[in-house]
């Protein structure tokens, strides 16, 4: 390694040093600079808190749901998965640019949804889902697909969630989270809310919806002879101290992602069917 470095010319070293210390020196806009700072901060947070050995998640673990309930949630998730795969095929053929976007969003959902975030107000950890952001960028149907892939990898290799409870996890995170995020974003835009604010609301409500549906899944399967509604409310209340601040964090994450794309490549948002504040071609 050292001998390799020593062979580099002085000019190469200076160029590399300049590029690393100042990647976008003069060209960036103020918004772009802000978005870049946000993304750098986010990357630093990922590096600092992203990889502790304790798994902290909303995923329903293996064996918690009785077989009939696990099967039912699988059946509920299947049509959405089929819808997503069909959409992926159609949209990829129509626009070859679409596959890299799905790949990027899928990687983001995978990383975000296995990133335990400490919540000091509750003294616990939980993870954002990334499905609100995914839904407004690639649509709810494809969000179900990328979420399913992420959940499968997590269940297989990261002891995160379970194979038998996969259907329930897909429904709460992929289906409910994405539909809520997408629906809130579209509704907010129609009501004249600014896109960044709409993205914030999408992230916030997709997170809270995911955990509300998880509470419902647990309550419906485990309430026994007691009241299902009561158990649903008790589980929801138990999630609240962690998820209220984490939902707000996810809202900022989604708004930051939207702002970043708007600053760096507004044409991308037009291409996926969303109108940014200022129109512009693909950069």
């Amino acid at each position, binding site marked *: 390694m050292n001998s390799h470095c020593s062979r580099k010319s002085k000019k190469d070293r200076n*160029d*590399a040093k*300049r*590029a*690393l210390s100042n*990647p*976008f020196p003069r*060209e960036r806009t103020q918004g772009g600079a802000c978005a870049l700072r946000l993304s750098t901060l986010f990357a630093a947070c*990922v590096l600092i808190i*992203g*990889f502790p*050995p*304790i*798994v*902290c*998640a*909303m*995923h329903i*673990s*293996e*064996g*918690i*749901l*009785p077989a009939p309930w696990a099967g039912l949630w699988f059946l509920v998730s299947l049509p959405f998965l089929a819808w997503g795969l069909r959409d992926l095929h159609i949209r990829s053929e129509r626009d070859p*640019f679409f596959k*890299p976007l799905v*790949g*990027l969003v899928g*990687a*983001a959902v*995978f*990383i975000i949804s*296995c990133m*335990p975030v*400490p919540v*000091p107000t509750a*003294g*616990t*950890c*939980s993870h954002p889902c990334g499905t609100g952001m995914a839904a407004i960028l690639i649509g709810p149907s494809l969000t179900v697909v990328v979420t399913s892939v992420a959940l499968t990898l*997590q*269940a*297989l*290799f*990261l*002891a995160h969630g*379970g194979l038998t409870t996969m259907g329930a996890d897909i429904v709460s995170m992929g289906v409910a989270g994405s539909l809520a995020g997408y629906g809130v974003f579209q509704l907010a835009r129609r009501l004249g809310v600014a896109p960044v604010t709409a993205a914030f609301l999408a992230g916030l409500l997709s997170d809270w919806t995911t955990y509300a549906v998880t509470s419902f899944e*647990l309550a419906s*399967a*485990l*309430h*026994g002879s007691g009241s299902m509604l009561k158990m649903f409310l*008790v*589980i929801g209340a*138990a999630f609240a101290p*962690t*998820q209220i601040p984490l939902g707000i964090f996810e809202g900022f994450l989604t708004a930051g992602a939207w702002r970043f794309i708007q600053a*760096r*490549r507004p044409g*991308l948002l037009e291409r996926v069917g969303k109108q940014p504040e200022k129109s512009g071609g693909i950069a």
Partner: protein
Amino acid sequence: MKKTLLTGGLILALAAGLYFTLKSFNTPWSGVDETVVEKFAREAGRPPRTPLINTDQGDLLLFFFLIAGSAGGFVGGYYFRELFPPKPNQPNV
């Protein structure tokens, strides 16, 4: 020199902040899977089973998390570069 001192100062400030924060919070930082999902499941008589592929053993899970993070970061970075190419006058490393 100024930049090095600033970076060093920031790292020290971050470490000190983290040290005092963690010291002041007397909590195991368990995940909501443990504090909520598994708690209610156990109370209902449905404790979680060991995963089919149990990587939660010693440092094995840390290894797999790092591999997953690296793989996810590589895939994300690959497509990011495709969607957000460097600007024409930006030096290419």
